[in-house]
């Protein structure tokens, strides 16, 4: 079943069409990768799905419901979480606080009760810290709970963003170049983590330039070029697609 459905989504900035009539869907429980040369519109696509940008035309459905005009926090509350290519951590907060925040922002304890420090709010905070330490362990940041996020190494900051997104308990996770700036060792470890995230039943949409990793872990690949979907299929199909080779290598299409 399709968890996410894009139909004829177009985004224009002034006269510049960044995404043109993109249509594809993402099936539940899969890892789908978005490939494309620089400037193909991949990050714009993520911004459209998460509500950061509004499409000029077209429709985006999540779990059968239109999210085209929904504000960002409401889309998050439907179970859509993301990371950023250009990291956007809460730099002056600790690693633990970065992750607990996701829990607390979705928490059900009203502010007034949190303010007076009611029993429920203390339990909520305690639970959030537990979840945070589990997730920090999961991404390999155990022991860094009290470190200021901005002081972590680049690779650690990347996985902290993933932990923060995971704390939202998402059904759908969008990862924007999670392996950028990681060494081969870190990348392959992260690839393993992504497979384990899929095992938890979380659907993943992934932008990634490490083509070899993508071929290994993706169930399906969508290729963008100049804002258009030029190919969509299983990794083996994509590898031999002449249009894809042309987009990457600049060859001619017969």
């Amino acid at each position, binding site marked *: 079943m399709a968890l996410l459905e894009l139909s004829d989504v177009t985004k224009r900035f002034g006269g510049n069409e960044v995404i043109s009539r993109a249509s594809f869907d993402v099936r539940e429980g899969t890892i789908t990768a978005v490939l494309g040369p620089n400037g193909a519109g991949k990050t714009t696509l993520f911004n459209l799905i998460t509500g950061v940008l509004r499409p000029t035309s077209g429709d985006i459905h999540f779990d059968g419901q239109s999210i085209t005009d929904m504000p960002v926090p409401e889309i*998050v509350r439907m179970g859509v979480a993301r990371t950023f290519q250009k990291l956007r951590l809460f730099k002056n907060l600790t690693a633990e606080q970065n992750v607990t925040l996701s829990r607390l922002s979705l928490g059900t304890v009203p502010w007034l009760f949190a303010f007076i420090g009611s029993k429920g709010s203390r339990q909520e905070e305690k639970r959030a810290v537990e979840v945070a330490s589990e997730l920090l362990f999961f991404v390999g940041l155990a022991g860094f709970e009290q470190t200021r996020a901005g002081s972590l190494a680049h690779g650690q900051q990347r996985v902290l963003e993933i932990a923060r997104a995971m704390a939202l308990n998402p059904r759908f996770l969008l990862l924007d170049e999670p392996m950028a700036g990681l060494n081969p060792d870190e990348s392959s470890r992260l690839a393993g983590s992504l497979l384990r995230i899929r095992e938890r039943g979380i659907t993943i949409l992934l932008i990634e330039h490490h083509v070899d990793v993508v071929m290994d872990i993706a169930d399906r690949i969508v290729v963008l070029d100049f804002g258009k979907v030029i190919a969509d299929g299983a990794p083996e199909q994509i590898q031999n697609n002449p249009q894809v080779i042309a987009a990457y290598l600049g060859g001619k299409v017969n």
Partner: protein
Amino acid sequence: MTRLPIRWRLAAVIAVFVVAEMVGPTIENAYILHLLVLTCIYSVLVMSHNLVTGYVGLFHLCHAAFFGIGAYISALLAIHLHLPVPLTFILGALGAAISGLAVGLLSVRLGGHYFAIVSLGLGVIVYQVLNNWVALTAGPIGLSGIPLPPEIPWFGSSIPWTPHVFLAVGLIFVLLTYIVCVRIQDSKVGLIMKAIRENELAAACVGIRTHKVKVAAFTIAAFLAGCAGGMYAHYSRMLVPEQYSFISSVELVAMTVLGGLGSFGGSIASATFFTIVPEMLRVAGQWRLEVFGALLVIVVLFFPRGMAGLGALIWAGVAWLCSRLGAQNVAKWGASRGVA
């Protein structure tokens, strides 16, 4: 940070409060007493300003307007409608809160510098209304004849509102505001506000309804500023629009930054500094304000985190001393304060 230091910090503040309440009645110099009451009022004002600027990270230039709205509403209702002062005080604070709500709604539409400029405009509008609606506010001549609050009943007799009583009540106000601010800081509300300050888009992407948080913060801050205004009105019993001008808002920004963004203890220290030090500098004669300005520059240059940074330095020193004396636990705590 662990829970313990927060309790200790509260305990320390309450201890200071009790000492201040005991010392207050023994002060005989009327001028010093006046300065201390003003310090209380400004402490409330700077803490409320810090809540928006230091926490949610919304830089605005109309906080003095909330102060003025609270003061004038309370004064006018007491003068013309003869309503009892505690009621006018609350209505004044609510009036300020409503204007805070409106400004907060604007902040949702406008980002960063644009919002700062719009808030500047709003502050000027409030000042112009106070200054030019002579029929209502008496304009630049000033609104006088503001009644005192009713005497406080006390075991059959009653206590009149002397400056000593104003100081005692003012200190209670400072303590209450401090507790409110620190509770916000320590609960998830404060963490959510900090997230918006750190990175607004990321905050929205972890499900924080950033618009609502901003509006709520503005409303709470304006309410507290309105309280400070009401207190000022019935203490001084004379209001002049000049006090609520753009310059006053800028002064509040200076006080907040000097105290340390996000540090409420720093806000109190800074309000005290701003009220007392210019008076101590009277020995410098006509150069008084120039010397004060130079002092400000020095503080900002050497302590970019304001007085809170200075406090952190002192804590680090205490921690070092304690570690030398073998009190490891206290040292660890002090070090965490020094870093935080």
